[in-house]
């Protein structure tokens, strides 16, 4: 019994970290806005979303364990260079906007503590670069894991906002559906920010990195499940916090930092600080993982030398890509005039477009007998997987069309 508990602890991590990273600055902003604009009326969505997240991520984790390869490697090996190249270009653009919103999140949350962005952003950029170049994944994993635990700050701030729990339960258990454009868009936005293409790449790679044996896969499954539930819970409490305060007083917010500030008069300074710390933590975590992960996927898929302990000469593309991503992500965050909302919408559009092929690849690959042996999907599993994929694609199509209209 003791042996098993140790084993679970040793294998746990990738799923929880991946799910935590999913709740990044953009996610927090979306959930806050969802709570502020619609109160508790979107809470029920978190239950199906969490289920969908588990379904999708379980497939990626399984593929990682059984094949020992990352998603971009598999796409390259099965679907060829051209497909991989355009997919990775999409991922690069989407992730650049994500990185930008992470740095903006750092700037915004530090301003709540009266640290100007001209100080916080360069320091954060340097810190991120330092951890990437000097750390190893295994040492970094511990930091990431600790950071993932800090997400509980949001759950606490959800309680501090003193919501009407009766209404919260009602909003959670009784799906309310509106056929209004803002409601639908917010719904799609919440889904899109929870299930992103790059997270699937990240989860699969970290499962591979962990070197989980196929016979220990059930522990990883457990890890993925817990991760998705925690991530759903965090999103849920962010919505509760802003629903209990901002929605009641009719305050609209666009960024997560706005939401933190707006909490002050209604939920007290402690809630504001907790919210800001949560945002800072999420943004730094995202700013560390997204550039590094992006660089890895691109280099592995295209066959460039990669690895954190390789010099610029040995791995020019790898080092070049993440360095440029950090710089391009940090610079716009220095200027308060940067249209963050547009950046976020762009990220959502590209992510939405990318999500369709990535999900299709995942389900197709996980069903390949020669790759997965008897670990392919069971028939009922495929029905659920394809239904999920079709539903997600339809929803992200709605989002893409609409955001496209707004950006251009």
């Amino acid at each position, binding site marked *: 019994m003791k042996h098993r508990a140790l084993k679970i602890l040793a294998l746990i991590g990738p799923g929880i970290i991946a799910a935590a990273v999913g709740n990044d600055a953009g996610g927090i902003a979306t959930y806050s806005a969802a709570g502020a604009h619609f109160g508790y009326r979107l809470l029920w969505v978190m239950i199906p979303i969490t289920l969908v997240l588990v379904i999708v991520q379980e497939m990626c984790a399984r593929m990682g364990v059984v094949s*020992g390869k990352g998603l971009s490697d598999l796409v390259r090996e099965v679907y*060829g*260079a*051209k497909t991989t190249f355009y997919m990775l270009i999409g991922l690069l653009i989407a992730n650049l906007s994500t990185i930008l919103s992470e740095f903006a999140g750092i700037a915004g949350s530090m301003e709540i503590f009266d640290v100007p962005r001209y100080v916080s952003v360069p320091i954060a950029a340097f810190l991120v670069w330092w951890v990437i170049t000097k750390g190893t994944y295994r040492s970094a994993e511990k930091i990431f894991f600790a950071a993932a635990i800090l997400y509980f700050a949001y759950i606490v701030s959800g309680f501090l906002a003193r919501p009407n729990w009766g209404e919260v339960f009602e909003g959670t258990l009784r799906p309310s559906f509106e056929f209004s454009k803002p409601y639908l868009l917010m719904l799609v936005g919440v889904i899109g920010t929870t299930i992103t293409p790059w997270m699937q790449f990240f989860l699969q790679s970290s499962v591979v990195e962990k070197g989980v044996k196929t016979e220990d896969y059930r522990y990883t499954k457990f890890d993925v499940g817990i991760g998705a539930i925690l991530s759903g819970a965090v999103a849920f409490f962010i919505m509760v916090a802003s629903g209990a305060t901002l929605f009641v007083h009719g305050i609209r917010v666009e960024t997560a930092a706005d939401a933190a500030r707006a909490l002050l008069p209604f939920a007290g300074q402690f809630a504001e600080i907790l919210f800001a710390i949560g945002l800072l933590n999420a943004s730094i975590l995202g700013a560390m993982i997204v550039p590094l992960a992006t660089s890895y996927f691109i280099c592995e898929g295209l*066959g460039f030398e990669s690895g954190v302990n390789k010099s610029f000469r040995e791995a020019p593309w790898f080092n070049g890509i993440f360095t440029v991503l950090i710089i391009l992500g940090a610079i716009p965050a220095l200027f308060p005039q940067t249209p963050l909302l547009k950046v976020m919408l762009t990220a959502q559009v590209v992510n939405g477009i990318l999500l369709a092929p990535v999900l299709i690849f995942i389900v197709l690959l996980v069903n390949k007998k*020669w*790759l*997965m042996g008897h670990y392919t999907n069971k028939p009922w599993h495929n029905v659920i997987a394809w239904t999920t994929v079709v539903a997600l694609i339809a929803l992200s199509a709605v989002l893409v069309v609409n955001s496209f209209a707004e950006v251009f």
Partner: protein
Amino acid sequence: MAFFSEIFFSTLIGKPVYTIDEKYYGNFRDFIVKRQNGNFLITKVRIRTRDGHRVIVPWHDIHSIEADPVSLKVNKKFAEIAPIDYDEDELRLKRDILDQQIIDTENHRVVRVNDLKIVAVKDELFMVAADIGLRGLLRRIGLEQWALSLAQILRRSFSNTLVPAKYIDPFPARIRHDITLTVAQEQLKQMHPADLADIMSDLDHFERTSILQALPTDTVAKTIAELNPEVRKEILGKLKDETLTQVLERLAPDAATDIVSELPRRRMQHVLATMRTSDSKDIHELLKFRKNTAGSLMNTEFVAFQKTLTAEEALKELRSKGQQAEYIYYLYIVDGEGGLEGVISLRELIFVEPQTPLASLIKRKPVFAKSREHAKSVVAKFTKYNLIAIPVVGKNKKLEGIITVDDILPLFKAAA
């Protein structure tokens, strides 16, 4: 027959195939190849027919390959085409090599294949090289011409990066978790363990296991000793206890101890218990020393002689016992209790009169390290006295082992 002299494989994929009477038959999918004298000989062609079937025809059924526009022609009419199957030892270029990772056994690295170079010699086709460069990648994406014009404007040459076929070791991706792949290739077996260790760190765990299975235990042992601790930990976790025991028995005690000390306690005890007692005793001794002390660095297999022996007797003893020792250029002279008295070189031993007593060869007090001495000060002694090896002594100056310069080298690197 009309064939090109050379072509890149990617330019053939999906191109139309016609029958001898100029009727459209299907599209080219893949070549089936067999290793032959370092190159890969094309034996069969895989075609997707117009009604969606995949058929395989022998290479000798191909009449010609046209270059502009690219197309293939079969030397038969539609009704005469008889599909065949391929053998187990044959590979498919597109499925098994193109876009996959291969080991470049010449440069000791793992690379991804962007394209394959095909050459025609008389009536036969050969895959002669893998293109692993940027130009090959751009060709696949469809940007090669664009990049070439850019290179011309910049007056730069933009050439292909090719790995000759004889240095290619493919990893077919078939059900990797089930089948034990044996990529037992000569090139790989002849590689230096340090180079193999470099390759290991670039591979995933299935590939690592498959390589380890293909190599002789001796090489496996030396490669594991060269790996960086993180990769090593993962590989050790996957090795069976018996294999691990065999590996450890083949290593010098100091290297084996390094590995054993990284194991979880329970496994450590189990592995030590199943080893030959002579080997496990050495490891038990070495495990007592704290990390970064002379004791933890030393090797317990050395050559020492009683000071009462003559040169002739010593040489005789060296021939019979010296095989085990890692290092015999310095020979250690000890008293009856095994206390260190002096050091002589092999050279000195060979060139003196056979009857000379060893005691008379000792010129000065030997330089030595105490087993509890810190590694840093051992390094300092190496540099100060220009040593290749240093004896390590315990209580009462008893000789316990030696540290050779290659045990110390990693510390130099860390200090630099």
